[in-house]
């Protein structure tokens, strides 16, 4: 097991800053998910930890030891790649046993440990096949078996589920969480899929444009996003963000309608703010923000009601499938409980309450 620490790490490729002054502590045995849109620097951050890239600035530590100048092969980490990076000329057995070769493990012991790792991932029947003879799911499991065979200090995973179909992805998510519990080793997992991040992580680190936006448990980043980017990125559909004005009683008004704010915004009255409310926290009532229903999407277990506010902005309300629902074109009023209303500074994007 290893604790991993990034301290003010920056990585540039020419003029592009891929990782910008990122500091992140990953605890021993923690399942940390780095999530963000394409090009946000999450894969580069992982490759910096792996030793496949060198930081331009900052310090990377493994178990407290600075590893900036330590080659990848000496870091004792295991990595699972998006493409799985299986050696096409080797059988599954040889692929899994390959990381044991540099350790000087003899052939019979390599085979024994490869078989044991294969058993963990239910690959016993395909040990003598080549990767081209396997399904996508099997290949992914071979890559995992190759990672666990060596009992490394930490596992690094770069979007390992993105090549699987939706059903297999859901199943493998659960398998990975179980594997993490079984191995009790640090996992650093990169994905662009916020559902993967929310369902698997002990903590989530959200990146955008190379900068770390927020680190927290899945509940924390969902309930209390640090800024408008996190509010918009985490959650599907994303948090509704509406233009509002601070009032002198610590609340806000949206399109002239008052929304209560539990602890008050602490902002001077009349100050423009952005208000964020999750779709499930909005409800229809006799009073509140006036809006017009546009469309209704039924998802079976829920319905998403898309509305347009008087100022032209949009808001989505999530309703249980059996809850009474307005029809497209109906005028409605939207309201929310005070503790569900988050207030952001529209200039910096940071949450002020």
């Amino acid at each position, binding site marked *: 097991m290893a604790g991993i620490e990034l301290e003010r790490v920056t990585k540039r490729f020419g003029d592009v800053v891929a990782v910008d002054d990122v500091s992140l502590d990953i605890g021993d045995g923690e399942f940390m998910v780095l999530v963000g849109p394409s090009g946000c620097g999450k894969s580069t951050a992982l490759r910096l930890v*792996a*030793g*496949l890239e060198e930081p331009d600035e900052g310090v990377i530590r493994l178990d407290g030891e600075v590893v900036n100048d330590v*080659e*990848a*092969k*000496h*870091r*004792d*980490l*295991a*990595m699972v*790649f998006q*493409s799985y*990076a299986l*050696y*096409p*000329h*080797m059988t599954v057995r040889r692929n899994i046993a*390959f*990381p044991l*070769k*540099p*350790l000087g493990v003899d052939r019979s012991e390599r085979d024994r440990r490869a078989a044991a790792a294969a058993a963990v991932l239910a690959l016993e029947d395909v040990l003598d096949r*080549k990767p*081209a003879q396997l399904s996508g799911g099997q290949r992914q499991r071979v890559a995992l078996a*190759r990672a666990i065979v*060596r009992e490394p200090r930490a596992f*690094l995973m770069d979007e390992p589920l993105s090549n699987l179909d939706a059903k297999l992805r859901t199943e493998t998510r659960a398998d990975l969480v179980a594997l993490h519990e079984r191995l009790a080793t640090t996992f650093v997992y990169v994905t662009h899929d916020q559902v993967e991040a929310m369902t698997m992580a002990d903590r989530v680190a959200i990146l955008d444009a190379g900068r770390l936006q927020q680190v927290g448990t899945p509940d924390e980043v969902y309930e209390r996003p640090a800024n408008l980017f996190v509010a918009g990125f985490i959650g599907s559909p994303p948090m509704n963000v509406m233009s509002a004005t601070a009032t002198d009683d610590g609340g806000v008004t949206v399109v002239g309608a008052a929304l209560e704010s539990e602890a008050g915004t602490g902002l001077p009255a009349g100050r423009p703010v952005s208000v964020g409310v999750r779709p499930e926290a909005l409800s229809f009532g006799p009073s509140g923000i006036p809006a017009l229903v546009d469309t209704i999407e039924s998802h079976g277990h829920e319905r998403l009601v898309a509305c347009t506010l008087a100022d032209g902005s949009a808001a989505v309300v999530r309703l249980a499938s059996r809850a009474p629902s307005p029809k497209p074109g109906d005028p409605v009023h939207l309201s929310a409980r005070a503790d569900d209303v988050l207030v952001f500074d529209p200039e910096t994007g940071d949450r002020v309450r």
Partner: protein
Amino acid sequence: MTLAPTLRGTGTESVTPTAGASKRRDRWLALALLAPSLVVFGVFVFYPLGRTVWLGFFLQDPFGLRRQWVGLEQYRDVITSSEFLNSLEVTALFTVYTVPTSLALGLGMAVLAHQKLRGMRLFRTIFASTVATSVAVASLLWLVLLQPSVGVFNQLLESIGREPLDLLNDADTALPAVAATTVWQNLGAVFIVTLAGLQSVPDELYESARVDGHGAWSRFRNVTIPMLGPQLLFLTVVLTINAFQSFGQIDLLTEGGPEESTNVIVYSIVETLAIDPGAASAQAVVLFGIVLVLSFVQFRWLDRRVHYAS
């Protein structure tokens, strides 16, 4: 239950005659499309080959005026003659000198040029340039470099206080010297083919091996070499055939000498042709047989060890 007899009935009654006519039409079309190639191959390959085999059965004067049937005896004489056996040995040595060395150096250069460094494009062009050089140009270039009195090689030796060497006129060094010029000429082709192969190997395979603790040599042995299997097999077969068919560089640099030390099979055939076309034909047929068997063995033996991308 009701569908099966209907399908079977229509199938046997109507499809078979139509399929037969269609097959006949396809056969004629195939023949028509193959005809131009068959004519070209027939005139320029199969007929000369058959004619050579046939001529090998005769004793002839240099002008082909008098001919005497001797049958397989001539082939037996060729195979057992000391001159032919010497040529065979020289050719085998020449192949051993040139093929592995060309592969090793060309692959090494390709691995170097595969690095993502500034200015590498220039090196790639330089490394590949020998492929555009003809045997004649390459041989003359090396003739000048190795020339005993004014050649660059001996000037270098003199500059470090060593005696000049006449590499091409010494029976001990002539074959290695000619082999070196051939290796130089092979490098461009080996470099281009192996570099193209290297560029198709995904970077993740190397990165995965790095993270798993493998050093540069282990990555080369366990990833690069197996992934280049098809290219290396192709080059081994082609370079071996080329080595067995070498003539131009021998003719220009050593004329088979000194003391027959560079008298490779094709040079021997050309020399014999002027005296005894029948014996030369028999030698040519034996060479054809050797190259055929060698290529077959290489394919059978090496192909099993090669991984082809699916």
